[in-house]
């Protein structure tokens, strides 16, 4: 079992749940949340020059790779902002905007719309991780951060658990951050528990900050997690 070393690079795959029904109901607006997520991503990239990033946008119907993507970035160059960060930010924000604008849903308040299927995004994330591991010569430690907004979809239990076991085998940590929504996502709680990640719930109504939660718990890589004390795990409903 190879142990993580402080200088090892990491790979972070951020899975953004863009369920419009869930975000519409949230006290934290999607654009504010995205700004905070983008700041978090920049902080992650700043930690180690070899850190890699993949961002995947997941909606009910589509699962799109937002970064690194081939989409053209047409925003003007801004000398105030570090160019590498600006590229990432613009790609992510424009990608999410494009995904949201393609949503045409009839019954947005139905129960079915509130559920976000995560297994497709997780499988895509694992494929990316596998691909990057194959291309990389040294050891790279991967983790997945799921920013979940919607609820569990019961019909995807088996495929979700299969992805979670695959992640466990690949020693990929899965952190879940429930950005909006009152109900705990039981499947994702189990995902975090099995793979060794954290399950965090951000209560925006009580003025808890998404950025603060992310920075304090999800920035830590494999090596650092053995040293820090993660926030206590709630009783998981098995």
């Amino acid at each position: 079992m190879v142990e993580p070393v402080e200088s090892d690079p990491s790979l972070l795959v951020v899975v953004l749940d863009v369920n419009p029904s869930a975000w519409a109901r949230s006290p934290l607006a999607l654009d504010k949340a995205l700004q905070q997520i983008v700041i978090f991503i920049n902080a992650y990239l700043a930690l180690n020059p070899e850190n890699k990033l993949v961002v995947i946008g997941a909606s009910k119907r589509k699962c799109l790779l937002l970064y690194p993507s081939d989409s053209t970035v047409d925003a003007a160059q801004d000398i105030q902002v570090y160019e590498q960060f600006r590229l990432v930010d613009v790609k992510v924000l424009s990608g999410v905007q494009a995904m949201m604008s393609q949503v045409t849903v009839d019954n947005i308040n139905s129960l079915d719309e509130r559920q976000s299927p995560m297994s497709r995004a997780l499988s895509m994330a694992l494929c990316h991780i596998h691909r990057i591991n194959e291309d990389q010569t040294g050891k790279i430690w991967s983790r997945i951060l799921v920013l979940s907004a919607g609820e569990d979809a019961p019909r995807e239990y088996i495929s979700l658990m299969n992805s979670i076991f695959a992640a466990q085998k690949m020693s990929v940590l899965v952190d879940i951050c429930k950005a909006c929504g009152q109900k705990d996502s039981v499947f994702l709680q189990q995902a975090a528990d099995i793979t060794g990640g954290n399950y965090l719930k951000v209560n925006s109504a009580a003025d808890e900050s998404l950025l603060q939660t992310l920075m304090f718990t999800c920035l830590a890589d494999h090596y650092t997690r053995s040293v820090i004390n993660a926030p206590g795990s709630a009783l998981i409903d098995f």
Partner: protein
Amino acid sequence: MVKPAVDDDDDYIDIDDTGPEGLKGADGGYAWEEEYKRSWDVIQEDASGSIQSSVSGLSELQRKRRRRLRDTEVVQRGIMRHVTVVIDQSEAMGVRDMTPTRMHAAMGLAEQFVAEFFDQNPISQLSVVGTRDGLAEKVTELSSNPMDHVGALRNRAQRDLAGEPSLQNALELAMHGLRRAPTHGLREIICVFGSLTTCDPGDIEQTLQALRHADVRVSMVHLAAEVHVFKRICTLTGGSFAVAADADNLRDALFELIPPPPLAAGRATADMVRMGFPIKARATDVPTPCVCHHELSFSGYLCPRCGSKVCSLPTDCDVCGLSLVSAPHLARSYHHLFPEENFVELPGTSVLSEACCFACGVEWNNST
């Protein structure tokens, strides 16, 4: 599905049997009469003089072949398995045809087998029996903790090999241990043997009848050759018999036994099994004892029926006997019960409409 056939004529070779004719290859000749195959011709040097690519290509081919043959039929399988592993510790296991000896190879693979077995079958239980010098000894009791078994196997590997194994004693001892297992579970005995002989106190036919009566499935992986008695026991009880040519073969043959086997046709099915899903005990300031090891610990799981604390899952509650599992353990078995489709190999990427891979977004290059 294997129907155990009751056939008393099996002991005598008949004129209808396949006999030596069954060994002939596809062209009608024996394997030793065919032209000598030069396996080294496959390996070619590439531009830089390295043979790494063709060697990795070979193993890639083997892996592909294995993947293609995966069984995707949806059948009823035995998920709760109670398996006894019988390890031969006779003098025949000291032969050096596997490096360094058969015993070392077998023990190393047995440890890997135990770890992989509990990974694929988390709600099953395993026990180990060793046989040497005409006797059989129980190495570990039925339990679902892989560390117990791996530790015991390591200790066992240090001991000397002696005498001849006794298959009958080993099977009787294993059956006695499996009697404790509930009937809704699948009872199996997996033997790893190296000796061509067995030194038994009585008639092994009676043991065979007892095994069939108790519905125990015996499978064996032999390291030397096919022995009629061993093969007969395996086939009549519904198990499998394999002979391993070398260490890789042994590993493959052993690991074939890890996925849950399909149930035989006549078994009673659809039992209701009572299982408990314990919740995590609240972390306390003062350590409390657990009922499984009687040791003090801060955390654990509480049995939903009697409330006693156990250290780890899956296990049986020592106080009330309830099987305690957690949902991911059951979910682990789902991929055996609902297997995914096999991948379809395409002749080239020109047949696809998309320009890049759906999963990772990388563009196709036309050599793949």
